[in-house]
Each structure stands twice: as structure tokens, then as C-alpha cells.
């Protein structure tokens, strides 16, 4: 009897363990087949160009690619900084005050979260394109149509458009968790409102800045849809990869460039995560 029970017990433990492995198996197969294997292939193809492994350095050594990389990094960095400033002012305000219409305002600030890059591009065309609002208003007021949707400024505006909603949510959550007692204490010790912001509030929001800033930066680096819709003469890395692949059929270069881009975005996010401890992920 005793023997039977323990035998049965061991049997069920064994089958439970194999059941857990069985649960994991389909994911392992799908991930290996449609992600790991293709990524390995991408790495191999990247080294199959005329320059071999040196193809991976072309992103830094080839002047045209390097200029595009610098363009993309500067644009993404500018987007990140402006987004952080805008989102901090608005997010702090929305979290600290209760007023009529606050929920509606929050909804308005976050609903573009699910817009694909192409739709964001179209939003910028409606604002600053040939038939856009800004051109229309400036035409009526100054007799000259201001159109900048298809320039680097239009692209910058588009990147702001999809970054602000993401960052605002993170900042609002971080402000909510701030210890109001610390600000109280600083104030009672005689610190003015600016000093409280500078010495107490902003440092406490540091991890949120790092986490959401990294997401904004990585998303901007990899953004393709917006640049694609606004098209014309804008050289950013994803557009370069796309044109090398489809128009020039330059598989090795586009593979090497996209590995380079992937390593940059992944490293930024990993760095931010080790810095701020929380889960950091880009989307879109």
C-alpha cells in the first residue's frame, strides 16, 4: 500500500515535469523556425557581400551610410529630448491636478498609441503637407504657404507624434508613485518651487526618464512607416535599408545595416533596463 502510493506520487511528478516541457515545446519550435533561424541567416548574409565581414563596418566607414546613421541618431536624440520635456510638463500637470475634462484630456494624449507609422505620416501631411492646415492658415495670413511635411522637420514632428503618448504614460505613472512627503519636507526647509522641482522631483523621476527615453529613442531609430509615408529625400537608416534591399537588391548591405540597426536599438534598451531596473521595451 505504502509502496503503491509513493510510486504513484513519483509517477505524477514525472508526468507533470514532462507536461511543463511539452507546454514549452511549441513556442521553442516556432521561435527557432521563424525568429532565431532567420536572424542567424541575416547575420550570415550580412557577411556575404564583396567585402565579407568588413561589410558590417560599412555602416561606419562608408561616408553615405555613416551620414545616414548620424542623421538617424541626431533625429532620434532630438525626438527623445523634446518628447521627454513635453511629456514631463504635461504628465506632471495631469497627475498633480484634478479638474473638469482631465480624463478626456488624458485620452486625447494617449489615443495615438495604436497608430501605425504610416497613419502618423498622414497626420503630418494633414498638418504640414501641401493641402495641410499650417499651409492653409499661413497662406491666408501671410500670403505664403508653409509646407514642411516632406522635409526633416516634418519627420521630426511625426516622431514626436508617436513618441509623446508612450512617454507621457510612463511619466504619469512615475509621478503618481513619487513620495509627496519629500517635496513637503524640502518646502518646509525653505526650498522654492523651482528648487523643489530641480533637486527633488526631477531626480526622483530619473529612472522613468531613462526607461521611457530609451523606448522613444529605439522606436525613433527603427521607425519606418512614417518616413515611408513622408518619403522624398529623407535619409534615415530604415529607409536606407529598405531602398538597398528593394531597389538596389543589395542583400548583403541591407542585411548588415539592419543587423547594425538591431544591435543599436537592442543595446539602448538593454542598457536602459540595467540602469533603471524596470522592464523596458519598444513597440511599433
Amino acid at each position, binding site marked *: 500500500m505504502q509502496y503503491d502510493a509513493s510510486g504513484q506520487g513519483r509517477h*505524477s511528478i514525472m*508526468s507533470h515535469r514532462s507536461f*511543463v516541457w*511539452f*507546454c*514549452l515545446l*511549441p*513556442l521553442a519550435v*516556432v*521561435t527557432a523556425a*521563424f*525568429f532565431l*533561424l*532567420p536572424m542567424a*541567416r541575416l547575420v550570415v548574409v550580412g557577411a556575404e557581400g564583396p567585402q565579407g565581414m568588413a561589410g558590417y563596418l560599412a555602416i561606419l566607414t562608408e561616408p553615405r551610410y555613416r551620414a545616414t546613421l548620424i542623421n538617424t541618431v541626431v533625429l532620434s536624440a532630438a525626438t527623445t529630448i523634446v518628447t521627454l520635456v513635453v511629456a514631463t*510638463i*504635461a504628465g506632471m*500637470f*495631469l497627475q498633480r*491636478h484634478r479638474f473638469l475634462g482631465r480624463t478626456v*484630456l488624458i485620452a*486625447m*494624449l494617449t*489615443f*495615438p*498609441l*495604436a497608430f*501605425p*507609422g*504610416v*497613419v502618423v*505620416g*498622414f*497626420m*503630418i501631411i*494633414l*498638418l504640414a503637407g501641401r*493641402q495641410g*492646415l499650417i499651409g492653409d492658415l499661413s497662406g491666408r495670413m501671410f500670403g505664403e504657404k508653409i509646407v514642411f511635411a516632406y522635409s526633416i522637420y516634418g519627420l521630426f514632428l511625426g516622431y*514626436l*507624434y508617436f513618441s*509623446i*503618448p508612450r512617454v507621457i504614460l510612463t511619466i504619469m505613472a512615475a509621478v503618481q508613485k513619487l513620495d509627496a512627503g519629500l517635496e513637503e519636507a524640502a518646502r518646509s526647509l525653505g526650498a522654492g518651487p523651482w528648487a523643489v522641482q530641480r533637486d527633488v522631483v526631477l531626480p526622483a523621476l530619473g529612472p522613468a526618464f531613462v526607461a521611457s527615453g530609451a523606448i522613444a529613442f*529605439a522606436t525613433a531609430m*527603427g521607425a*519606418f*512607416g512614417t518616413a515611408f*509615408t513622408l*518619403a522624398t529625400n529623407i535619409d534615415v537608416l*530604415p529607409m536606407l*535599408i*529598405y531602398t538597398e*534591399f528593394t531597389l538596389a537588391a543589395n542583400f548583403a548591405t541591407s*542585411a548588415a545595416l*539592419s543587423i547594425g540597426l*538591431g544591435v543599436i*536599438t*537592442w543595446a539602448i534598451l538593454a542598457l536602459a533596463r540595467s540602469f533603471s531596473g524596470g522592464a523596458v*521595451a*519598444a513597440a511599433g
Partner: protein
Amino acid sequence: MRDRLIFSGQLVFTLGVAAFLVVPAVLSISAGVTVNYFRGISSGVTLQWVFQVWDLYADTILLSFLIAFAALAVTLLIGVPAAYALHTHGGRLSRIVEEVITLPIAIPGLAIALALLLTYGGFRSFRGSWLFIVAGHVIFTMPFMVRSVMAVFATVDVRTLDEGAASLGASPARRFLDVIVPNATPGILAGALMVITLSLGEFNLTWMLHTPLTKTLPIGLADSYASMRLEVASAYTLIFFIMIIPLLIAMQIFADRGQGR
């Protein structure tokens, strides 16, 4: 007095940011139902553009839903058991697996699409079918499903429930279906909403993976932005908004309920 000034300044600033985000969307909605956008709304209100979009692009809308639900089916069938296994097994292996399946969020879709093309581009019938796009969407949305379900497992004491059912003699598979899955429902629903929303709006991967016969909604949108008159492009965008906004509201309700718990 000073506080009032700061308050008003911040309010105006925040309203300005909201206007930047909302005004173009409103312009797009109004352009989609205006007879002639160039002459303004006074030229009349019409649904002709919406109907024209339906005539031209109905297949892209249907295909998008097909792909989204196929991706959902796969992420459910594979992701939910995997989340259970990762939670139960724990340890370093689980962390590594979680890390690997989350990589597609950190790597631009363009790179993943290129990788898929270079690997499977030669398999003509697979490359030309909508299932090729589903494969990309599954890789991209899987981490959201797995994490969403794992987040629920972290708050529910799965092990005790599992052991309780085991002591009553239920087999592992029975326990999974009758005990684990019902307890994971909030995470499964939140993950499902996320998968559908992301799949419907996915462009970066899909643009590379699609063929002229497998165009999804965002591909059709890009197409209309490049080649159609503004009213048609706007009407198409309007249809996209109508599809996506209920999903966003549902996600918001979920998030609020999650906070309330």
C-alpha cells in the same frame, strides 16, 4: 496668484500638446466625409469616399482581420501554455527564453522581415501566402501575450491551485485546462486585445512580407496615401480609426480594472 499663473501656463501647454495630437485626426475624419476638402466642409457632407474605399480596399480590411485572428489563435495556443511552463519552471532557463522571445520588440520590424525573406523567400507558395505575414505577426505579438499571462500568474498563487487539483487526482492536462486557464483569463484577454490591436496596425514587417495579392489594411493605407486623392485616403483612415478605437477603449477599461484590484 503665482500658483494660478503656473497652473494656467501648464494647462495651456498641455492643451496645445493635445491639439497637436488630436487636430490632425479630426482633420482626417472630416476630410473623409467632405465632398471636396479643398473647398472645405461647406461643399457638403458625403459617405461616397467611404463607399469608394470599401469598393477598392474591402479585401485588405478582411485580410487584416483574418491575419489578426490567425495570429491570435497561434499566440493563444502556443503562448498561454508557454507562459504557464515558464512560470512553473522558473529559474535561469525561463529568463533566457523570456529574453529571447522579447527580442522582436527591441529589434526593428524591418530587420525581422528581411531575415524572414532571406530565409523563406525561396519557398514560393509560403512566401506568396498570407500565412507568411501571420508568421511575422506571431513573432512580433507573442511576447505581449506571454508576458500578459505571466503577469497574472505572478499575482495568482498558481502553484497552490495546481497542487490542490493534483492532490484530487487531476492529470496535468486537465489541471491546465480546468484550473490554470480560467485563473489566467484576465491576462489572456488583455494579451488578446494587444495582439489584435498590434496585428491590425502592423506596417514595418508587413510592408516587406506582403505581395500584391496579400495586402493588409496598413499596406492599403500607405498605398492610398501615395496614390489616392486626400478624401479617399482620409475615408480609409477613418475606417481604420473606427476599427481600432473600440479596441483601445477596451484595453483602457482593462488597465483601469487591473489597477482597481
